Protein backbone atom coordinates (compact mmCIF):
# COMPACT_ATOMS: atom_id res chain seq x y z
CA UNK A 1 0.00 0.00 0.00
CA UNK A 2 1.54 3.29 -0.94
CA UNK A 3 0.65 6.44 0.92
CA UNK A 4 -0.68 9.48 -0.88
CA UNK A 5 0.85 11.76 1.67
CA UNK A 6 0.36 15.50 1.43
CA UNK A 7 3.20 16.04 3.89
CA UNK A 8 6.30 17.60 2.38
CA UNK A 9 9.19 15.15 1.95
CA UNK A 10 11.43 17.25 4.18
CA UNK A 11 9.11 16.68 7.13
CA UNK A 12 10.81 14.82 10.00
CA UNK A 13 9.51 11.32 10.78
CA UNK A 14 6.25 11.15 12.68
CA UNK A 15 7.90 8.78 15.17
CA UNK A 16 11.57 8.01 15.49
CA UNK A 17 12.36 5.42 18.18
CA UNK A 18 16.01 4.53 18.73
CA UNK A 19 17.20 1.69 20.97
CA UNK A 20 14.09 2.11 23.09
CA UNK A 21 14.38 0.12 26.30
CA UNK A 22 12.10 -0.06 29.31
CA UNK A 23 13.03 -1.99 32.43
CA UNK A 24 10.63 -2.47 35.33
CA UNK A 25 11.95 -3.44 38.75
CA UNK A 26 10.03 -6.35 40.21
CA UNK A 27 8.36 -5.86 43.58
CA UNK A 28 9.51 -7.87 46.59
CA UNK A 29 12.62 -9.06 44.78
CA UNK A 30 15.86 -7.72 43.47
CA UNK A 31 15.03 -8.77 39.94
CA UNK A 32 13.78 -6.74 37.02
CA UNK A 33 11.80 -7.25 33.85
CA UNK A 34 12.72 -5.93 30.42
CA UNK A 35 9.39 -4.94 28.87
CA UNK A 36 10.89 -3.30 25.78
CA UNK A 37 14.35 -4.26 24.62
CA UNK A 38 16.32 -1.98 22.25
CA UNK A 39 13.40 -1.36 19.93
CA UNK A 40 14.12 0.90 16.97
CA UNK A 41 11.62 1.89 14.29
CA UNK A 42 10.57 4.85 12.24
CA UNK A 43 7.08 5.92 11.23
CA UNK A 44 7.37 8.26 8.28
CA UNK A 45 5.07 11.22 7.91
CA UNK A 46 1.82 10.19 6.25
CA UNK A 47 2.41 6.49 6.84
CA UNK A 48 0.21 3.92 8.63
CA UNK A 49 2.38 1.77 10.86
CA UNK A 50 1.09 -1.30 12.65
CA UNK A 51 2.75 -2.73 15.73
CA UNK A 52 1.54 -6.27 16.25
CA UNK A 53 2.28 -8.83 18.88
CA UNK A 54 0.60 -11.11 21.40
CA UNK A 55 -0.61 -9.89 24.80
CA UNK A 56 2.27 -8.93 27.08
CA UNK A 57 4.73 -8.54 24.22
CA UNK A 58 5.49 -4.88 24.93
CA UNK A 59 3.05 -3.13 22.54
CA UNK A 60 1.34 -0.97 25.17
CA UNK A 61 4.62 -0.06 26.87
CA UNK A 62 6.07 1.00 23.51
CA UNK A 63 2.97 3.08 22.90
CA UNK A 64 3.22 4.74 26.32
CA UNK A 65 6.88 5.54 25.65
CA UNK A 66 5.90 7.14 22.34
CA UNK A 67 3.20 9.18 24.09
CA UNK A 68 5.54 10.31 26.86
CA UNK A 69 3.40 8.66 29.54
CA UNK A 70 6.52 6.71 30.51
CA UNK A 71 10.16 7.62 30.36
CA UNK A 72 12.46 5.11 28.63
CA UNK A 73 15.19 3.44 30.70
CA UNK A 74 17.43 3.79 27.66
CA UNK A 75 17.04 5.16 24.16
CA UNK A 76 15.04 8.01 22.69
CA UNK A 77 11.71 8.67 21.01
CA UNK A 78 10.90 11.69 18.94
CA UNK A 79 7.63 12.85 17.43
CA UNK A 80 8.13 15.13 14.44
CA UNK A 81 11.63 15.87 15.69
CA UNK A 82 10.57 16.77 19.23
CA UNK A 83 11.41 14.55 22.20
CA UNK A 84 8.30 12.93 23.63
CA UNK A 85 9.28 14.29 27.03
CA UNK A 86 8.55 17.75 25.56
CA UNK A 87 4.91 18.60 26.20
CA UNK A 88 4.77 20.51 22.89
CA UNK A 89 5.20 17.24 20.99
CA UNK A 90 1.79 16.16 22.27
CA UNK A 91 -0.05 18.87 20.38
CA UNK A 92 0.83 16.81 17.29
CA UNK A 93 -0.55 13.56 18.76
CA UNK A 94 -4.09 12.26 19.00
CA UNK A 95 -4.43 9.18 21.18
CA UNK A 96 -7.19 6.62 21.47
CA UNK A 97 -6.55 4.15 24.31
CA UNK A 98 -7.91 0.63 24.31
CA UNK A 99 -11.39 0.50 25.85
CA UNK A 100 -11.40 4.23 26.49
CA UNK A 101 -13.09 5.64 29.55
CA UNK A 102 -13.85 9.29 29.67
CA UNK A 103 -15.63 11.46 32.20
CA UNK A 104 -19.02 9.76 32.33
CA UNK A 105 -20.64 12.87 33.75
CA UNK A 106 -19.91 14.80 30.53
CA UNK A 107 -22.00 14.63 27.37
CA UNK A 108 -20.46 13.81 24.00
CA UNK A 109 -20.21 17.48 23.02
CA UNK A 110 -18.85 18.46 26.45
CA UNK A 111 -16.20 15.76 26.18
CA UNK A 112 -14.96 17.12 22.87
CA UNK A 113 -15.10 20.66 24.23
CA UNK A 114 -13.01 19.61 27.23
CA UNK A 115 -10.29 17.98 25.13
CA UNK A 116 -10.41 20.78 22.56
CA UNK A 117 -9.83 23.38 25.25
CA UNK A 118 -6.89 21.39 26.61
CA UNK A 119 -5.41 21.72 23.12
CA UNK A 120 -5.96 25.48 23.11
CA UNK A 121 -9.07 25.57 20.91
CA UNK A 122 -11.65 28.17 21.82
CA UNK A 123 -14.81 29.87 20.60
CA UNK A 124 -16.44 29.34 17.23
CA UNK A 125 -13.62 27.24 15.78
CA UNK A 126 -14.01 24.79 18.65
CA UNK A 127 -17.79 24.70 18.26
CA UNK A 128 -17.48 24.02 14.55
CA UNK A 129 -14.88 21.34 15.17
CA UNK A 130 -17.16 19.61 17.70
CA UNK A 131 -19.97 19.54 15.14
CA UNK A 132 -17.65 18.15 12.44
CA UNK A 133 -16.32 15.41 14.66
CA UNK A 134 -19.72 14.34 15.99
CA UNK A 135 -20.89 14.09 12.39
CA UNK A 136 -17.76 12.14 11.45
CA UNK A 137 -18.28 9.51 14.14
CA UNK A 138 -22.04 9.48 13.67
CA UNK A 139 -22.85 10.65 17.20
CA UNK A 140 -24.81 13.81 16.44
CA UNK A 141 -27.92 12.18 17.85
CA UNK A 142 -26.10 11.57 21.17
CA UNK A 143 -24.26 14.89 21.45
CA UNK A 144 -26.17 15.94 24.58
CA UNK A 145 -26.32 12.49 26.16
CA UNK A 146 -23.96 11.76 29.04
CA UNK A 147 -21.23 9.22 28.33
CA UNK A 148 -22.57 7.05 31.15
CA UNK A 149 -25.36 6.14 28.71
CA UNK A 150 -23.05 5.36 25.76
CA UNK A 151 -22.48 1.82 24.48
CA UNK A 152 -18.95 0.46 24.12
CA UNK A 153 -18.92 1.18 20.40
CA UNK A 154 -20.13 4.74 20.98
CA UNK A 155 -17.38 5.27 23.57
CA UNK A 156 -14.84 4.06 21.04
CA UNK A 157 -16.18 6.51 18.47
CA UNK A 158 -16.20 9.49 20.84
CA UNK A 159 -12.66 8.43 21.75
CA UNK A 160 -11.66 8.66 18.12
CA UNK A 161 -13.29 12.07 17.86
CA UNK A 162 -11.34 13.40 20.88
CA UNK A 163 -8.14 12.02 19.41
CA UNK A 164 -8.72 14.10 16.27
CA UNK A 165 -9.98 17.26 17.97
CA UNK A 166 -6.84 19.39 17.50
CA UNK A 167 -6.15 18.05 13.97
CA UNK A 168 -3.03 16.15 15.02
CA UNK A 169 -0.34 15.08 12.54
CA UNK A 170 0.01 11.71 14.27
CA UNK A 171 -2.80 9.51 15.54
CA UNK A 172 -1.94 6.70 17.96
CA UNK A 173 -4.58 3.98 18.17
CA UNK A 174 -4.47 1.18 20.72
CA UNK A 175 -6.73 -1.69 19.64
CA UNK A 176 -9.15 0.77 18.00
CA UNK A 177 -11.79 -1.82 17.16
CA UNK A 178 -11.84 -3.64 20.49
CA UNK A 179 -15.47 -4.37 21.34
CA UNK A 180 -16.79 -2.77 18.17
CA UNK A 181 -19.21 -4.63 15.87
CA UNK A 182 -18.18 -5.44 12.26
CA UNK A 183 -19.87 -2.35 10.81
CA UNK A 184 -18.26 -0.06 13.39
CA UNK A 185 -14.96 -1.82 12.82
CA UNK A 186 -15.28 -1.21 9.09
CA UNK A 187 -16.00 2.48 9.69
CA UNK A 188 -12.89 2.83 11.85
CA UNK A 189 -10.84 1.09 9.17
CA UNK A 190 -12.21 3.48 6.54
CA UNK A 191 -11.43 6.40 8.79
CA UNK A 192 -7.81 5.28 9.16
CA UNK A 193 -7.51 5.12 5.37
CA UNK A 194 -9.07 8.56 5.08
CA UNK A 195 -6.65 10.00 7.64
CA UNK A 196 -3.81 8.55 5.61
CA UNK A 197 -5.14 10.18 2.45
CA UNK A 198 -5.05 13.50 4.28
CA UNK A 199 -1.40 13.00 5.18
CA UNK A 200 -1.94 12.08 8.81
CA UNK A 201 0.41 9.44 10.21
CA UNK A 202 -1.17 6.58 12.11
CA UNK A 203 0.55 4.35 14.67
CA UNK A 204 -1.67 1.38 15.31
CA UNK A 205 -1.36 -1.36 17.90
CA UNK A 206 -3.55 -4.37 17.33
CA UNK A 207 -3.66 -8.11 17.42
CA UNK A 208 -6.32 -8.24 14.68
CA UNK A 209 -3.89 -9.17 11.94
CA UNK A 210 -6.40 -9.01 9.11
CA UNK A 211 -7.23 -5.44 9.99
CA UNK A 212 -3.59 -4.46 10.24
CA UNK A 213 -2.92 -6.02 6.86
CA UNK A 214 -5.75 -4.03 5.30
CA UNK A 215 -4.62 -0.58 6.41
CA UNK A 216 -0.90 -0.57 7.21
CA UNK A 217 1.98 0.44 4.99
CA UNK A 218 4.59 -0.90 7.36
CA UNK A 219 4.45 -3.38 10.18
CA UNK A 220 6.58 -4.25 13.19
CA UNK A 221 6.24 -7.58 14.97
CA UNK A 222 7.11 -7.35 18.64
CA UNK A 223 7.49 -10.36 20.89
CA UNK A 224 8.95 -10.60 24.39
CA UNK A 225 9.95 -6.95 24.18
CA UNK A 226 12.03 -7.31 21.04
CA UNK A 227 11.13 -6.13 17.57
CA UNK A 228 11.48 -9.39 15.60
CA UNK A 229 10.56 -8.18 12.10
CA UNK A 230 9.97 -4.73 10.71
CA UNK A 231 9.39 -3.32 7.26
CA UNK A 232 6.91 -2.64 4.43
CA UNK A 233 3.93 -4.95 4.61
CA UNK A 234 4.20 -6.10 0.98
CA UNK A 235 7.80 -7.18 1.52
CA UNK A 236 7.16 -8.91 4.82
CA UNK A 237 4.18 -10.90 3.61
CA UNK A 238 5.62 -11.91 0.23
CA UNK A 239 6.75 -15.58 0.07
CA UNK A 240 9.96 -15.43 -1.88
CA UNK A 241 9.85 -18.84 -3.56
CA UNK A 242 6.17 -18.86 -4.51
CA UNK A 243 4.22 -17.11 -7.30
CA UNK A 244 0.49 -16.47 -7.38
CA UNK A 245 -1.52 -16.26 -10.59
CA UNK A 246 -5.13 -15.12 -10.33
CA UNK A 247 -7.28 -15.69 -13.42
CA UNK A 248 -10.75 -14.54 -14.26
CA UNK A 249 -13.12 -16.33 -16.67
CA UNK A 250 -10.51 -19.05 -17.31
CA UNK A 251 -11.81 -22.10 -19.17
CA UNK A 252 -11.08 -25.65 -17.87
CA UNK A 253 -9.01 -26.20 -21.02
CA UNK A 254 -6.76 -23.23 -20.23
CA UNK A 255 -6.28 -24.44 -16.67
CA UNK A 256 -5.34 -27.92 -17.95
CA UNK A 257 -2.77 -26.37 -20.27
CA UNK A 258 -1.26 -24.32 -17.42
CA UNK A 259 -1.08 -27.41 -15.19
CA UNK A 260 0.65 -29.37 -17.94
CA UNK A 261 3.15 -26.55 -18.47
CA UNK A 262 3.90 -26.40 -14.74
CA UNK A 263 4.57 -30.15 -14.68
CA UNK A 264 6.74 -29.93 -17.78
CA UNK A 265 8.88 -27.22 -16.16
CA UNK A 266 9.32 -29.30 -12.98
CA UNK A 267 7.58 -26.79 -10.65
CA UNK A 268 5.02 -27.82 -8.02
CA UNK A 269 1.40 -26.70 -8.15
CA UNK A 270 0.59 -26.03 -4.51
CA UNK A 271 -3.06 -25.07 -4.78
CA UNK A 272 -5.78 -24.64 -7.30
CA UNK A 273 -9.23 -23.36 -6.53
CA UNK A 274 -11.46 -20.36 -6.14
CA UNK A 275 -10.23 -17.48 -3.95
CA UNK A 276 -12.17 -17.01 -0.73
CA UNK A 277 -13.72 -13.79 0.47
CA UNK A 278 -13.35 -12.82 4.12
CA UNK A 279 -16.03 -13.45 6.71
CA UNK A 280 -16.16 -9.70 7.31
CA UNK A 281 -16.78 -9.03 3.62
CA UNK A 282 -19.44 -11.78 3.50
CA UNK A 283 -21.18 -10.33 6.55
CA UNK A 284 -21.15 -6.78 5.18
CA UNK A 285 -22.35 -7.94 1.76
CA UNK A 286 -25.27 -9.74 3.35
CA UNK A 287 -26.18 -6.71 5.45
CA UNK A 288 -26.00 -4.46 2.39
CA UNK A 289 -28.08 -6.90 0.38
CA UNK A 290 -30.66 -7.11 3.15
CA UNK A 291 -30.89 -3.34 3.38
CA UNK A 292 -31.22 -3.04 -0.39
CA UNK A 293 -34.02 -5.63 -0.37
CA UNK A 294 -35.79 -3.79 2.42
CA UNK A 295 -35.44 -0.51 0.55
CA UNK A 296 -36.80 -1.98 -2.68
CA UNK A 297 -39.72 -3.45 -0.71
CA UNK A 298 -40.40 -0.02 0.76
CA UNK A 299 -39.51 -1.00 4.35
CA UNK A 300 -37.54 1.58 6.34
CA UNK A 301 -34.88 0.00 8.51
CA UNK A 302 -33.95 1.38 11.91
CA UNK A 303 -30.41 0.08 11.46
CA UNK A 304 -27.66 2.47 10.40
CA UNK A 305 -26.70 2.37 6.77
CA UNK A 306 -23.53 0.41 6.00
CA UNK A 307 -20.32 2.30 5.46
CA UNK A 308 -19.23 3.25 1.96
CA UNK A 309 -16.76 0.87 0.44
CA UNK A 310 -13.28 2.26 0.09
Amino acid at each position, binding site marked *: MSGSSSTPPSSPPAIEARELTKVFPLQWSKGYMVAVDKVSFTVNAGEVYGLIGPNGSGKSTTMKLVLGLMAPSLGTTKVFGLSTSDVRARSEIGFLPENP*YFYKHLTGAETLRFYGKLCGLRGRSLQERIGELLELVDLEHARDRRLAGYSKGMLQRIGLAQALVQRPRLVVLDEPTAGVDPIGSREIRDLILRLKQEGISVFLCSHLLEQVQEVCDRVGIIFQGKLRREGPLDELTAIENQTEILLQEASPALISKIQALIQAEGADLLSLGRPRTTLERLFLDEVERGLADARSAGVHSAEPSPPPRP
Partner: protein
Amino acid sequence: MSVPNHAPMPGRPVPPMFSPGRIWTLAAATFTQLVRMRTFYFLLFFAVLVFGMSNVNLLYTAEQQLSTIRGTSFGAMWLFAWLFAVTATAVVIPRDIEDRTLYTILSKPVPRVEYLLGKFFGVLLVITVALGAMLLLSGLVLEFRKAGLIAETRSYLEQSPDLTPADIQGQLDAISSEGFHPRLFTAAWIILLQAAVMAAATILVSTFASSSLFTIIVGIAFFLIGHGHRIAVDYWSEGGATNNWLAWAAKVVPDFHIFNVHEKIVAGSTASPLVMAEITAYAGVYCVVYLLLGWYMFSDKEF
Protein backbone atom coordinates in the same frame (compact mmCIF):
# COMPACT_ATOMS: atom_id res chain seq x y z
CA MET B 1 -20.32 9.55 7.41
CA SER B 2 -19.43 12.88 5.87
CA VAL B 3 -15.87 13.69 5.05
CA PRO B 4 -14.71 16.80 6.91
CA ASN B 5 -11.13 17.86 6.57
CA HIS B 6 -8.89 16.50 9.30
CA ALA B 7 -5.65 17.63 7.78
CA PRO B 8 -3.25 19.14 10.29
CA MET B 9 -3.67 22.83 10.93
CA PRO B 10 -1.15 24.86 8.96
CA GLY B 11 1.05 27.03 11.13
CA ARG B 12 -0.15 25.48 14.36
CA PRO B 13 0.73 27.82 17.24
CA VAL B 14 3.22 26.40 19.71
CA PRO B 15 1.29 25.60 22.89
CA PRO B 16 2.46 27.60 25.90
CA MET B 17 4.50 25.74 28.50
CA PHE B 18 2.17 27.01 31.23
CA SER B 19 -1.42 27.94 30.55
CA PRO B 20 -3.93 29.28 33.09
CA GLY B 21 -6.59 28.49 30.47
CA ARG B 22 -5.80 24.77 30.59
CA ILE B 23 -5.78 24.85 34.39
CA TRP B 24 -9.19 26.51 34.33
CA THR B 25 -10.47 23.88 31.86
CA LEU B 26 -9.34 21.09 34.19
CA ALA B 27 -10.71 22.90 37.26
CA ALA B 28 -14.08 23.44 35.57
CA ALA B 29 -14.24 19.75 34.58
CA THR B 30 -13.43 18.75 38.16
CA PHE B 31 -16.10 21.14 39.43
CA THR B 32 -18.67 19.65 37.04
CA GLN B 33 -17.61 16.13 38.00
CA LEU B 34 -18.06 16.78 41.72
CA VAL B 35 -21.32 18.69 41.26
CA ARG B 36 -22.76 15.88 39.13
CA MET B 37 -21.71 13.43 41.84
CA ARG B 38 -24.41 15.27 43.83
CA THR B 39 -22.03 16.62 46.44
CA PHE B 40 -24.26 19.64 46.90
CA TYR B 41 -26.86 17.39 48.52
CA PHE B 42 -24.93 18.29 51.66
CA LEU B 43 -26.54 21.72 51.35
CA LEU B 44 -29.96 20.14 51.95
CA PHE B 45 -28.66 18.66 55.19
CA PHE B 46 -27.24 22.05 56.07
CA ALA B 47 -30.52 23.83 55.30
CA VAL B 48 -32.47 21.38 57.46
CA LEU B 49 -29.95 21.85 60.27
CA VAL B 50 -30.03 25.66 60.16
CA PHE B 51 -33.81 25.91 59.81
CA GLY B 52 -34.17 23.37 62.60
CA MET B 53 -31.89 25.35 64.89
CA SER B 54 -33.79 28.55 64.13
CA ASN B 55 -36.96 26.99 65.48
CA VAL B 56 -35.46 25.65 68.70
CA ASN B 57 -36.43 27.83 71.65
CA LEU B 58 -34.91 25.92 74.53
CA LEU B 59 -32.49 28.71 75.39
CA TYR B 60 -33.23 31.64 77.62
CA THR B 61 -32.35 34.71 75.65
CA ALA B 62 -32.78 35.89 72.09
CA GLU B 63 -29.03 36.59 71.89
CA GLN B 64 -28.27 32.98 72.84
CA GLN B 65 -30.66 31.69 70.17
CA LEU B 66 -28.96 33.71 67.43
CA SER B 67 -25.54 32.80 68.73
CA THR B 68 -26.49 29.11 68.57
CA ILE B 69 -27.70 29.39 64.98
CA ARG B 70 -24.44 31.13 64.06
CA GLY B 71 -22.25 28.64 65.88
CA THR B 72 -24.06 25.61 64.45
CA SER B 73 -23.97 27.00 60.91
CA PHE B 74 -20.27 27.72 61.01
CA GLY B 75 -19.53 24.43 62.74
CA ALA B 76 -21.28 22.61 59.88
CA MET B 77 -19.44 24.77 57.31
CA TRP B 78 -16.10 23.97 58.94
CA LEU B 79 -16.86 20.23 59.04
CA PHE B 80 -18.05 20.17 55.43
CA ALA B 81 -15.07 22.16 54.15
CA TRP B 82 -12.21 20.12 55.57
CA LEU B 83 -13.92 16.75 55.20
CA PHE B 84 -14.91 17.46 51.61
CA ALA B 85 -11.40 18.74 50.85
CA VAL B 86 -9.98 15.37 51.94
CA THR B 87 -12.56 12.99 50.45
CA ALA B 88 -13.10 14.75 47.12
CA THR B 89 -9.40 15.30 46.48
CA ALA B 90 -8.67 11.70 47.43
CA VAL B 91 -11.14 10.50 44.80
CA VAL B 92 -10.50 12.66 41.75
CA ILE B 93 -6.92 11.67 40.86
CA PRO B 94 -7.04 7.90 41.60
CA ARG B 95 -10.29 7.67 39.66
CA ASP B 96 -8.66 9.27 36.61
CA ILE B 97 -5.84 6.73 36.86
CA GLU B 98 -8.15 3.74 37.30
CA ASP B 99 -10.42 4.84 34.44
CA ARG B 100 -7.43 5.67 32.24
CA THR B 101 -8.92 9.10 31.65
CA LEU B 102 -5.52 10.36 32.73
CA TYR B 103 -3.95 8.81 29.61
CA THR B 104 -6.08 10.87 27.27
CA ILE B 105 -5.52 14.05 29.30
CA LEU B 106 -1.75 13.71 29.59
CA SER B 107 -1.43 12.70 25.94
CA LYS B 108 -2.68 16.21 25.12
CA PRO B 109 -0.27 19.13 25.61
CA VAL B 110 -0.96 19.28 29.36
CA PRO B 111 2.01 19.54 31.74
CA ARG B 112 1.50 17.44 34.84
CA VAL B 113 1.72 20.43 37.16
CA GLU B 114 -1.27 21.94 35.34
CA TYR B 115 -3.21 18.72 35.85
CA LEU B 116 -2.54 18.81 39.61
CA LEU B 117 -3.41 22.50 39.84
CA GLY B 118 -6.60 21.94 37.85
CA LYS B 119 -7.71 19.25 40.29
CA PHE B 120 -6.77 21.40 43.28
CA PHE B 121 -8.62 24.47 42.07
CA GLY B 122 -11.61 22.37 40.96
CA VAL B 123 -12.05 21.01 44.48
CA LEU B 124 -11.54 24.50 45.95
CA LEU B 125 -14.12 25.89 43.57
CA VAL B 126 -16.72 23.44 44.83
CA ILE B 127 -15.87 24.26 48.45
CA THR B 128 -16.01 28.00 47.74
CA VAL B 129 -19.41 27.77 46.07
CA ALA B 130 -20.74 25.51 48.84
CA LEU B 131 -19.40 27.80 51.58
CA GLY B 132 -20.89 30.81 49.78
CA ALA B 133 -24.27 29.10 49.58
CA MET B 134 -24.10 28.08 53.25
CA LEU B 135 -23.04 31.56 54.27
CA LEU B 136 -25.94 33.07 52.33
CA LEU B 137 -28.41 30.60 53.80
CA SER B 138 -27.23 31.07 57.38
CA GLY B 139 -27.24 34.85 56.87
CA LEU B 140 -30.85 34.77 55.64
CA VAL B 141 -31.94 32.52 58.50
CA LEU B 142 -30.12 34.70 61.04
CA GLU B 143 -31.67 37.91 59.74
CA PHE B 144 -35.13 36.37 59.48
CA ARG B 145 -34.90 34.98 63.00
CA LYS B 146 -33.43 38.22 64.31
CA ALA B 147 -36.35 40.22 62.92
CA GLY B 148 -38.80 37.83 64.59
CA LEU B 149 -36.98 37.94 67.93
CA ILE B 150 -36.74 41.73 67.87
CA ALA B 151 -40.47 42.04 67.20
CA GLU B 152 -41.30 39.57 69.98
CA THR B 153 -38.90 41.25 72.44
CA ARG B 154 -40.12 44.76 71.58
CA SER B 155 -43.76 43.88 72.21
CA TYR B 156 -42.80 42.16 75.46
CA LEU B 157 -40.62 45.01 76.75
CA GLU B 158 -43.09 47.70 75.76
CA GLN B 159 -45.54 46.21 78.23
CA SER B 160 -43.10 46.87 81.06
CA PRO B 161 -43.73 50.34 82.63
CA ASP B 162 -40.30 50.44 84.30
CA LEU B 163 -38.30 50.50 81.08
CA THR B 164 -37.49 53.67 79.22
CA PRO B 165 -37.36 53.73 75.40
CA ALA B 166 -33.56 53.95 75.71
CA ASP B 167 -33.49 50.75 77.80
CA ILE B 168 -35.64 48.95 75.27
CA GLN B 169 -33.50 50.14 72.39
CA GLY B 170 -30.38 49.00 74.22
CA GLN B 171 -31.77 45.50 74.56
CA LEU B 172 -32.91 45.44 70.96
CA ASP B 173 -29.44 46.59 69.84
CA ALA B 174 -27.91 43.74 71.83
CA ILE B 175 -30.11 41.26 69.95
CA SER B 176 -29.36 42.96 66.64
CA SER B 177 -25.63 42.65 67.18
CA GLU B 178 -26.01 38.85 67.28
CA GLY B 179 -27.42 38.71 63.76
CA PHE B 180 -25.45 38.49 60.56
CA HIS B 181 -22.32 40.64 60.57
CA PRO B 182 -19.80 41.26 57.77
CA ARG B 183 -17.03 39.91 60.03
CA LEU B 184 -18.50 36.46 59.36
CA PHE B 185 -17.03 36.66 55.85
CA THR B 186 -13.58 36.57 57.44
CA ALA B 187 -14.56 33.46 59.41
CA ALA B 188 -15.69 31.79 56.17
CA TRP B 189 -12.40 32.84 54.51
CA ILE B 190 -10.38 31.16 57.29
CA ILE B 191 -12.46 27.98 56.92
CA LEU B 192 -11.71 28.06 53.18
CA LEU B 193 -7.99 28.52 53.86
CA GLN B 194 -7.91 25.50 56.13
CA ALA B 195 -9.75 23.46 53.49
CA ALA B 196 -7.21 24.61 50.87
CA VAL B 197 -4.33 23.34 53.03
CA MET B 198 -6.13 20.03 53.50
CA ALA B 199 -6.79 19.73 49.74
CA ALA B 200 -3.13 20.49 48.90
CA ALA B 201 -1.91 17.93 51.46
CA THR B 202 -4.33 15.32 50.09
CA ILE B 203 -3.13 16.01 46.52
CA LEU B 204 0.41 15.32 47.74
CA VAL B 205 -0.66 12.03 49.34
CA SER B 206 -2.66 10.93 46.29
CA THR B 207 0.40 11.31 44.03
CA PHE B 208 2.01 8.30 45.72
CA ALA B 209 -0.90 6.52 47.42
CA SER B 210 -2.17 3.25 46.03
CA SER B 211 -5.87 3.83 46.71
CA SER B 212 -8.46 6.47 47.59
CA LEU B 213 -9.13 4.80 50.94
CA PHE B 214 -5.48 5.05 51.95
CA THR B 215 -5.45 8.71 50.89
CA ILE B 216 -8.56 9.50 52.94
CA ILE B 217 -7.15 7.77 56.03
CA VAL B 218 -3.83 9.61 55.71
CA GLY B 219 -5.70 12.88 55.08
CA ILE B 220 -7.80 12.52 58.22
CA ALA B 221 -4.72 11.49 60.24
CA PHE B 222 -3.00 14.59 58.90
CA PHE B 223 -5.91 16.72 60.10
CA LEU B 224 -5.82 15.18 63.56
CA ILE B 225 -2.04 15.59 63.81
CA GLY B 226 -2.45 19.23 62.74
CA HIS B 227 -4.84 19.75 65.63
CA GLY B 228 -2.58 17.96 68.09
CA HIS B 229 0.38 19.92 66.77
CA ARG B 230 0.45 22.61 69.47
CA ILE B 231 0.03 20.13 72.30
CA ALA B 232 2.93 18.07 70.98
CA VAL B 233 5.18 21.10 70.54
CA ASP B 234 4.35 22.34 74.05
CA TYR B 235 5.10 18.89 75.45
CA TRP B 236 8.47 18.75 73.74
CA SER B 237 9.31 22.26 74.85
CA GLU B 238 8.44 21.53 78.49
CA GLY B 239 10.57 18.42 78.41
CA GLY B 240 13.47 20.56 77.26
CA ALA B 241 13.63 18.87 73.91
CA THR B 242 15.52 21.10 71.55
CA ASN B 243 16.08 18.42 68.97
CA ASN B 244 16.35 19.95 65.51
CA TRP B 245 14.68 16.91 64.00
CA LEU B 246 11.59 17.50 66.14
CA ALA B 247 11.59 21.17 65.21
CA TRP B 248 11.60 20.26 61.52
CA ALA B 249 9.00 17.53 62.00
CA ALA B 250 6.74 20.12 63.62
CA LYS B 251 6.99 22.26 60.49
CA VAL B 252 5.93 19.46 58.13
CA VAL B 253 2.35 19.58 59.37
CA PRO B 254 0.72 22.98 59.88
CA ASP B 255 -0.63 24.03 63.23
CA PHE B 256 -4.37 23.95 62.63
CA HIS B 257 -4.99 25.81 65.91
CA ILE B 258 -4.09 28.95 63.97
CA PHE B 259 -7.26 28.48 61.93
CA ASN B 260 -9.39 28.18 65.08
CA VAL B 261 -9.59 31.98 65.04
CA HIS B 262 -12.78 31.51 63.03
CA GLU B 263 -14.52 30.25 66.18
CA LYS B 264 -13.69 33.48 68.02
CA ILE B 265 -14.88 35.54 65.06
CA VAL B 266 -18.17 33.65 64.98
CA ALA B 267 -18.49 34.19 68.76
CA GLY B 268 -18.15 37.97 68.28
CA SER B 269 -14.45 38.87 68.09
CA THR B 270 -12.94 40.66 65.15
CA ALA B 271 -9.65 39.64 63.53
CA SER B 272 -7.36 42.49 62.54
CA PRO B 273 -6.23 42.79 58.91
CA LEU B 274 -2.71 41.87 60.06
CA VAL B 275 -3.92 38.62 61.65
CA MET B 276 -5.93 37.81 58.53
CA ALA B 277 -2.90 38.46 56.33
CA GLU B 278 -0.72 36.25 58.52
CA ILE B 279 -3.20 33.36 58.42
CA THR B 280 -3.60 33.74 54.66
CA ALA B 281 0.18 33.72 54.15
CA TYR B 282 0.57 30.74 56.49
CA ALA B 283 -2.00 28.72 54.52
CA GLY B 284 -0.56 29.93 51.21
CA VAL B 285 2.96 28.78 52.06
CA TYR B 286 1.76 25.31 53.05
CA CYS B 287 -0.39 25.02 49.91
CA VAL B 288 2.54 25.99 47.67
CA VAL B 289 4.96 23.64 49.43
CA TYR B 290 2.56 20.66 49.32
CA LEU B 291 1.70 21.28 45.66
CA LEU B 292 5.38 21.58 44.72
CA LEU B 293 6.12 18.30 46.52
CA GLY B 294 3.12 16.73 44.79
CA TRP B 295 4.39 17.94 41.42
CA TYR B 296 7.81 16.46 42.19
CA MET B 297 6.24 13.09 43.03
CA PHE B 298 3.85 13.19 40.07
CA SER B 299 6.27 14.42 37.42
CA ASP B 300 8.05 11.06 37.06
CA LYS B 301 5.10 8.85 37.92
CA GLU B 302 4.44 6.16 35.33
CA PHE B 303 0.97 4.90 34.54
